[in-house]
């Protein structure tokens, strides 16, 4: 059979291969396309970040013009959230969830392809603004209204040309893709599990995908609604956010954060899934407190719907509004703490293997904790009045997004790359990647808190000398060199291991979930016969018939 498929590959022209990928409805291929697409955008957003850090490295810099700087931070933020983090997480979930729950594909394979292509098209449209955003009215190219695009900056009077329309339309289209993807994940997880895979036996990664998808349904939709309103305003002369006709700009801010805050949980919850799969395997112990983990995630999902106005303390709210959103935000810390203790307890007393996936998870644990703590600080309204819109906030959320989300994505790459390609990533390069990136991350983002505390606002294109901000900014910028080097090692590792890595075999980590029971890479149909499970660790049961898990669960 293997030789047959090789023969087929030889005879296919490049065009046929391209066609095959474009027309595919296989969840693994679609998952890979999401991931590759997101990695391309990761590089683009990284270049944007590098440019901004060059500009901010010292005072009174003229490397970039203010206009270009505005475009760069808008594109960097929008790209990062919608075209890097979301697609990469959707990609992993696409690839892994059907395998983990013992299904042969997603519930709706064609909807799956549609969702991917919508997302892909959204990203291309966003970047098409560089060529076409100017429009006839001589506005700017590329969007420059910030990733949250507060009204009235988006009103035709302040955003002439089409750059803002590109922003709106691309997020609208990508949003349709995300909602399609979420519907598909939910239907897959609820309705496609293999025999015996009850909800209480499902791998945590599948649980987290379920929670993430449910959140997508109720968070991306408000964004879609708000974008529709903005389009009504911009194209049809509507007045939703037009203060001269009785409209309100604050309502945009509310709508945006009703989307925006749960969105950050859409991004972190699948990462909880990665960590919960990887930590037990490399601690050689079953996950500690599985039900608590599930309950905490569902809890976080619900609570996250009621905290959005902690982004609005400085917009102005009545005191009971402030109090409410301070308290709900603080409540998030409880389930989050439960999770951290569960991971620690899983490691406690385990025979920890410090392989690359695991060390990235350990990095995640530390950094996510610190990021949560600065989050709690910002959730205290009086403290936030001082620090809102400063570099302290920028440091907080990059601590979560890079130190938490990106680290766990790296962990996921090192852990599942062997399954996806059939070859191991180099451990040596992996360790180099980890340490160099870790140094870069801490140089950039630890030191970024300080200018924030000293009063440096975000989104300024330069600053005067003599305010005590220079050194901190210089250190932050130097950190970027290390981060970029780390990413280069990672990319090199992925390319060279694809051709020369050691052959992985079905189950290189001696793991316990179903994806490791099939070949690496898995065949198109995933499983020759559909599996049947009796516990949370089906492969443990298979390997230890004398002492299976189902006797104890």
């Amino acid at each position: 059979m293997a030789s047959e498929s090789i023969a087929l590959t030889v005879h296919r022209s490049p065009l046929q291969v391209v066609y095959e990928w474009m027309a595919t409805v296989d969840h693994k291929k679609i998952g890979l396309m999401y991931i590759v697409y997101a990695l391309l955008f990761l590089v683009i957003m990284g270049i944007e970040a590098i440019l901004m850090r060059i500009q901010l490295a010292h005072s009174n810099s003229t490397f970039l013009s203010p206009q270009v700087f505005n475009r760069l931070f808008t594109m960097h933020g929008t790209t990062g959230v919608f075209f890097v983090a979301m697609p990469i997480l959707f990609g992993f979930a696409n690839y892994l969830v059907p395998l983990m729950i013992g299904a042969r594909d997603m519930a709706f394979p064609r909807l799956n392809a549609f969702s991917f292509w919508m997302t892909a098209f959204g990203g291309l449209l966003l970047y098409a603004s560089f060529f076409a955003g100017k429009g006839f009215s001589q506005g700017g190219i590329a969007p420059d209204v910030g990733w949250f695009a507060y009204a009235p900056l988006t009103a035709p009077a302040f955003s002439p040309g089409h750059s803002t329309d590109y922003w709106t339309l691309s997020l609208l289209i990508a949003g349709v893709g995300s909602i399609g993807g979420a519907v598909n994940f939910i239907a897959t997880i609820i309705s496609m599990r293999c025999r015996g895979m009850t909800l209480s036996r499902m791998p945590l990664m599948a649980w987290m995908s379920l929670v993430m998808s449910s959140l997508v349904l109720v968070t991306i939709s408000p964004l879609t609604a708000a974008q529709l309103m903005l389009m009504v305003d911009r194209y049809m002369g509507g007045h939703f956010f037009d203060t001269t006709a009785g409209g309100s700009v604050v309502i945009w801010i509310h709508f945006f954060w009703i989307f925006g805050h749960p969105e950050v949980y859409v991004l972190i919850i699948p990462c909880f899934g990665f960590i919960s799969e990887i930590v037990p395997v490399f601690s050689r112990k079953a996950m500690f407190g599985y039900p608590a983990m599930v309950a905490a995630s569902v809890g976080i999902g619900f609570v996250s719907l009621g905290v959005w106005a902690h982004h609005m303390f400085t917009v102005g709210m009545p005191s009971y509004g402030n109090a409410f959103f301070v308290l709900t935000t603080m409540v998030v810390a409880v389930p989050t703490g439960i999770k951290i203790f569960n991971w620690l307890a899983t490691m406690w007393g385990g025979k920890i293997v410090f392989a690359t996936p695991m060390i990235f998870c350990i990095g995640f644990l530390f950094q996510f904790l610190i990021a949560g703590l600065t989050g709690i600080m910002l959730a205290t309204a009086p403290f936030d009045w001082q620090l809102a819109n400063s570099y302290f906030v920028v440091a907080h959320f990059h601590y979560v997004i890079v130190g938490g989300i990106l680290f766990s994505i790296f962990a996921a790459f090192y852990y599942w790359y062997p399954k996806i390609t059939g070859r191991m990533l180099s451990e040596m390069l992996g360790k180099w990647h980890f340490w160099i990136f870790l140094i870069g991350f801490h140089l950039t983002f630890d030191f970024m808190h300080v200018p924030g505390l000293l009063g440096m606002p975000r989104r300024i294109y330069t600053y005067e000398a003599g305010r005590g901000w220079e050194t901190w900014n210089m250190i932050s910028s130097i950190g970027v060199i290390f981060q970029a080097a780390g990413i280069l090692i990672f990319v090199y590792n992925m390319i060279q291991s694809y051709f020369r890595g050691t052959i992985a075999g079905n189950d290189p980590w001696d793991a316990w979930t179903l994806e490791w029971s099939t070949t690496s890479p898995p065949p198109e149909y995933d499983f020759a016969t559909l599996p049947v499970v009796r516990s949370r660790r089906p492969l443990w049961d298979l390997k230890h018939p004398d002492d299976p898990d189902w006797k104890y669960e």
Partner: protein
Amino acid sequence: MGANVVTIPAGDSWQLPSRGRTGMISLIVAESAIFTIFVAAYVFYIGKSPDGPTPKQILHVPIFATICLLSSSLTMHAAADSLRRGKTAAFRLLWILTLLLGLIFIISTAREWHRLIYGQGFTIETNLFGTTYYSLVGLHASHVIAGLAGLTIVAILGVLGKVRSEHSERCDILALYWHFVDAVWIVVFSVVYVIGR
């Protein structure tokens, strides 16, 4: 070679909810969130328009259209029920009746809009009320149109005799969507014609 598959007997029967139904319910949740935001904006902006016209001056309450749309839910339910029992003739009749009732609703909305736009010169640009009114009612109407498209396809297949009781699951799922569209109308109607007027 083939996969190294876990084969452990699981015992009792294994049945999961249908994926079509799960998918449709998820879609309805997402759509509800979109409507929630539009309804919130509508309610927030009630009475905030600095200039006229006001809802009281120009809106006519669409009672007949509302009755038609709501009763189409009943006929839809009956249609799906007959299909499940294999009574395809009754199904065809009731389904087409549903389609007609939906059409009456959308035509009456279209006439109302025609009257407002060409008769009164009241458009989406006129004032804040116009913006919120046309957006919310229009969002709902576009869902009705999507539903009607689905209904029409099934109706054509039904007339060709291609819809049989084994398709009742699919018709049920489409019916779910239609009931949702009707339920949203109750909210939109209350907000626009009762509270907002």
